[in-house]
């Protein structure tokens, strides 16, 4: 029964593929996101750029806000918990959230242990910046992975770096001899069975999205061409000049990520992109949280 639940949770992620998951902070934004073609929304009190600007401890959103967003849209609603905060996860499960993001964007609640996600019926997505992190989260019960990138910056460099690294590490595992997989599992600090799966299938055992710094349609298409199966856009939409237009453009860019003509069309006249900050200008590296 538990195993069946995990399969169903992985399968929901399969339905999200080729789509854009957008951060929203209220019911109004959630509706705009759905109208623009988002395949799911992430309910948050503050988007990552504002969390970064405000500083202080950042926590799970108010359940009231999450319920309002659930009532406003028919697409899946996700929400974030602090790394390791299994009680926040219990709260979100009680709200019947569609996906929990155990996220480095919030202040970690535990600097050693992640949530044992096998204990829950609702699915979890977790961030990763390399193959070892991705497989550790999966062994803890995550049914979807996203790159960490560097949230709230509008700077795509880290999402690119993490996607490239995960893809190249997968290719490396594929190229190994069978008898080398045991040491690989030791090096990556992950169970042998997961390494074997990657070796045989050339992919993660769950769906893999890109996240953390995507701000334009071209950014989104870049992530897709690098091998992501879909994209999270956090601050990039509602920190921009014309959110509805930009959101719809990013959705189209993810569908036709290989067609430069369509990418040119949708990139036109979107208004101002989020200002963004270069990664060397920032103090707080969210990607270093939870390894």
């Amino acid at each position, binding site marked *: 029964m538990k195993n069946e639940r995990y399969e169903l949770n992985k399968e929901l992620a399969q339905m999200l593929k080729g789509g854009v998951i957008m951060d929203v902070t209220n019911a109004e934004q959630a509706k705009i996101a759905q109208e623009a*073609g988002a395949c799911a929304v992430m309910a948050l009190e503050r988007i990552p750029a504002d969390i970064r600007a405000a500083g202080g401890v950042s926590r799970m959103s108010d359940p009231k806000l999450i319920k309002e967003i659930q009532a406003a849209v028919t697409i899946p609603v996700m929400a974030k918990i602090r790394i390791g905060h299994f009680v926040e996860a219990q709260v979100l499960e009680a709200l019947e959230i569609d996906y929990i993001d155990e996220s480095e964007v919030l202040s970690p609640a535990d600097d050693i242990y992640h949530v044992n996600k096998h204990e829950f019926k609702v699915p979890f997505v977790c961030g990763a910046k390399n193959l070892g992190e991705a497989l550790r989260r999966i062994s803890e019960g995550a049914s979807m992975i996203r790159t960490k990138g560097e949230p709230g910056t509008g700077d795509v460099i880290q999402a690119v770096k993490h996607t490239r690294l995960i893809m190249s590490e997968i290719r490396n595992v594929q190229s190994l001899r069978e008898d080398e997989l045991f040491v690989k599992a030791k090096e990556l600090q992950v169970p042998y069975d997961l390494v074997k799966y990657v070796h045989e299938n050339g992919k993660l055992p769950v769906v893999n999205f890109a996240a953390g710094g995507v701000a334009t349609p071209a950014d989104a298409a870049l992530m897709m061409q690098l091998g992501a199966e879909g994209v999270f856009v956090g601050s990039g939409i509602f920190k921009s000049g014309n959110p509805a237009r930009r959101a719809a453009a990013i959705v189209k860019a993810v569908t036709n990520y290989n067609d430069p003509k369509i990418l040119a069309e949708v990139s036109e006249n979107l208004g101002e992109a989020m200002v963004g900050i270069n990664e060397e200008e920032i103090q707080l590296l969210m990607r270093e949280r939870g390894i």
Partner: protein
Amino acid sequence: MQIGILALQGAFIEHAKMLKALGIGSFEIRQKKDLSKPMNGLILPGGESTTMYKLLVDLDMAEKVKELIESGMPVFGTCAGLLLLAKTVHNYKQAYMQTMDIVAKKNAFGRQLGSFRATGTFNGVTDVTFVFIRAPYIESVGEGVEVLAEIDGLIVAARQKNQLVTAFHPELTTNPTIHKYFIKMCEKAMK
């Protein structure tokens, strides 16, 4: 035989894999020009129906898809694909292409916690695994619509002439019963 698979968003690769296992070729439909390629059948996959319909309209494809279906092209809609074809979506502000005379209910089993797996009978074939992911069901069917599967008295698969729909995801299983049924529909249409 070539089957076109709508690949705007969702689980379209899973359909291509199932067809490949059955020795059937397929191609992805991502924009209007792809709809002009020769095809013997069309699959509308699972995913988010609002996303797919928004893209069908924005990419100027909705009318052409509707025309193809109305001209007799065999079409197979799973989950979101069912919603795209339904004449009425009972609990949502809009219906989409409205080519099939069924009333569908969106997210009819609730949120992800309501997703489930069951074993049922499809058109007389027993022991078929049905995977429901935030699935709809069919509340009622019009005249000329054949009910092909039910779960607890709820209609979860149906056919009206060239249109086949399932509320569940046969493409997520290894049982090819329903894809084979669709390929037969395509073969008949070719004659």
